[in-house]
């Protein structure tokens, strides 16, 4: 499974703490995990419930979902002691939520950037779910020295398209301080901007800017943009560098499409097929 290899060493946090009821949470978990099973491969998932209390029945159901989907769960994060106890009874690995244990943000001047009001409205709908929404007003510090380091869960934001694989449509704007993973296609006319790296589990079109606001060459060289397909029209910017697709009409394009990574090497952006 080439497409999941890139993430197997890291963990993805699924934040479920914003839901009020278990039924809602359960429904979302089912869609995320069971229906998109092939997306996850061997990736270790961390389920975050925060202050959300789970009853005995809820934990049973959670256990059932995990067993049915055969998903790799690293741990369940919860701040509730009752839930923690119940999870232990079921032999589900659980921890409390780590509080900002990362190093100070090197790009702290950018830390105050927030989503525009229009994009907030778009992100809170059912289809495009901004999972780490709770941390948006004060973006968590990120560790730019090494992208996706183990145990720095705060650095990852996952956007999931639940509607037939289209995650972000024309006119959507994602602006975030940290690394971003998008699950689903990114359509032309969409803009993604992050201070960290960007991974798209789907077709990438539109305009992406990784390493936004960075000037340090050494840090910029560690930033990347990965996608299962890099389509057209596409504009990739990393730090100060910018590159665009060849503008060939997609109707006539016979080019083979494969997973690719874009990086800055020797002052230029290169597309490398290093997923294989």
């Amino acid at each position, binding site marked *: 499974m080439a497409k999941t290899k890139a993430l197997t060493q890291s963990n993805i946090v699924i934040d479920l703490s914003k839901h009020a009821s278990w039924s809602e949470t359960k429904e979302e978990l089912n869609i995320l995990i069971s229906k998109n099973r092939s997306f996850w491969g061997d990736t270790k998932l961390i389920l975050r419930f925060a202050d959300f209390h789970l009853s005995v029945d809820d934990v049973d159901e959670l256990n059932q979902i995990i067993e049915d989907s055969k998903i790799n769960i690293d741990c369940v994060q919860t701040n509730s002691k009752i839930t923690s106890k119940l999870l232990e009874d079921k032999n589900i690995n659980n921890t409390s939520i780590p509080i900002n244990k990362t190093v100070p943000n090197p790009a702290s001047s950018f830390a105050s950037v927030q989503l525009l009001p229009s994009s907030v409205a778009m992100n809170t709908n059912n289809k*495009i779910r901004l999972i780490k929404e709770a941390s948006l007003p004060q973006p968590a510090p990120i560790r730019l020295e090494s992208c996706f380091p183990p145990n720095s869960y705060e650095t990852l934001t996952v956007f999931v398209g639940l*509607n037939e694989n289209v995650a972000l449509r*024309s006119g959507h704007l994602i602006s975030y301080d940290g690394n971003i993973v998008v699950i689903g*296609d990114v*359509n032309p006319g969409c803009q993604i901007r992050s201070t960290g790296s960007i991974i798209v589990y789907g077709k990438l079109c539109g305009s992406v800017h990784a390493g936004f606001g960075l000037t340090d060459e050494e840090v910029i060289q560690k930033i990347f943009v990965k996608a299962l397909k890099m389509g057209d029209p596409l504009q990739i910017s990393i730090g100060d560098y910018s590159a665009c697709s060849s503008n060939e009409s997609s109707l006539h394009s016979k080019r083979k499409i494969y997973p690719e990574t874009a990086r800055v090497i020797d002052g230029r952006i290169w597309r490398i097929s290093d997923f294989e």
Partner: protein
Amino acid sequence: MPGKTILFTSGKGGVGKTTSTANISVALAAQDPNINVCMIDMDIGLRNLDIQLGLENRIVYNLVDVVEGSCKVRQALVKDKRLPNLSLLPAAQTRDKTSVTPEQMVTLIDELREMFDLILIDSPAGIEGGFYNSVAAADEAIIVSTPEMSSVRDADRVIGLLEAHPRKINCWLIINRLRAAMIKSNDMMSVDDVMEILGIKLLGVIPEDERIIVSTNKGEPLSLTPKHSGAGQAFRNIALRLTGVEVPLMDVYGESQNILIKQFQKLKSLIKFG
């Protein structure tokens, strides 16, 4: 049971929103005389739906009059001359989109829901005020797009806006003005190409048809003419699908054509050139 509201929208202009609204409404009303269908023209200032239905000269009051309280809803509704169960609430021609607010539209459509089983709203092009007035009370949306990049891009934007709407409006797609020959020669996006980008459920595909121009000029929707017409049949199929009948997608590419007919055409062309 209160009626259902279906919105026709596209983002881009000139892709066939009004034509689809007129033809599908007529087909819906014609296929079941017990269903009461109402059309609302939301394109205030640039109204067209009445022309396509041939009802222009019957308009006395309009939507803005109703909203402003100058008349009752029943007075403004124009009954179709062919189908007694089909009515039109025309737009005002002398006003603009700012004459109505989304709240007023919700009140108006709630009143109409008691009178009709199906309410079809023809939205204006664009994503400004007129669009939001049309969306205000819609239950479901039908996105009309032609297989062109600019139209698909605009449709994608509109779908994004509708999905982000607090009421989570369910979207369906109609691909209009499809030309099989151009797709075969790789000069036009195919149905699959459009579906890959938009990723919503397909309601129907309408082939390009010259008779549409004649029918809109005459004010006689094509879906009402009994003569065989590609577009008319496609509109009738969509109307059936909207009422829950399963109809297979039309063979727009002409692939399953009878082998005998194909042979005959081959023979004909041989004789012509030989």
